[in-house]
């Protein structure tokens, strides 16, 4: 069932990848192979750090859009999960945002999905804790004023 919901997004012109990740950073459902799973997990964790950092300052982040590797990467956050999509044209972004809003609503009523989500529940702020950063990130952070 969540796969059918993912197909709705995948059917949008130029969308090359859709992945639903838990707040642990794990991929639950995916359609498209343009990015290896390890890289999707890493991207999810970076996005979750931004989400968690924003939450700490009192802002609830709903979505983010980036230009990345000649593609447009969209992250749509919801309670306990995020949907990452990658498309190659900016023309579909408005349609994608609407579709993602509806997808989040549909997923919130989808029993198999909720069951999966329950198993992978985690607070996004865990990605900001000491020990969660790799050497490269620690090096970058140490250079911050």
């Amino acid at each position: 069932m969540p796969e059918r919901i993912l197909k709705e997004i995948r059917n949008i012109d130029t969308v090359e990848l859709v992945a639903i990740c838990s707040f642990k950073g794990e991929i639950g459902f995916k359609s498209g192979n343009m990015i290896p799973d390890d890289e999707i997990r890493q991207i999810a964790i970076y996005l979750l750090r931004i989400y968690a950092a924003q939450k700490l300052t009192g802002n609830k982040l709903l979505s983010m859009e980036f230009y990345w590797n000649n593609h447009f990467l969209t992250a749509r956050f919801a309670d306990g999960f995020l949907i990452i999509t990658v498309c190659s044209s900016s023309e579909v972004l408005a349609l994608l945002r609407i579709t993602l809003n509806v997808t989040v609503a549909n997923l919130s009523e989808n029993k198999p999905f909720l069951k999966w989500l329950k198993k992978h529940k985690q607070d996004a702020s865990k990605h900001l804790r000491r020990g969660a950063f790799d050497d490269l990130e620690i090096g970058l952070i140490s250079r911050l004023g």
Partner: protein
Amino acid sequence: MQLNKHAVCCLVSGKMPGEVSLNSMEWAVITQIDGERTVDEIARKLTFSLPEAMQIFNALVEKGLIEIIAIKDETVKTVSSAFFNQLEKILVQFIGPVATYVINDTLLELNADRSNYPKNMVPELIELLSDEISDESKKIEFQKQMLTLLKKD
């Protein structure tokens, strides 16, 4: 053929240009030329402004590296009046009889009108109209119904 935003280019074959040097932007454009996409499509893909892209394409033509092979159809598909009637009908359910005025105001904001609204810009219109619905769950319901309508149209 004159270079414009609807022009389709391909790499020149069978002719060896003299020694040429390319800057990074020209190289980026070269990598996207496939004989199918227009200047406008490539500009969007590379997030160049249209004047910027035109300048680069012109430079590449002058260097003898690319040539124009076609000009794509410039006609823009517009939405039907039936679509607007349906949209109004749906929006009335969420914001009441002001829906007509809200749609007209939003179209004005977008510098468009019902008779020539491009089909590919409908999602932007839906997003703007959604902002007029304060209740979050009703907003999603509106978007859900509009997506269904878009698929039918």
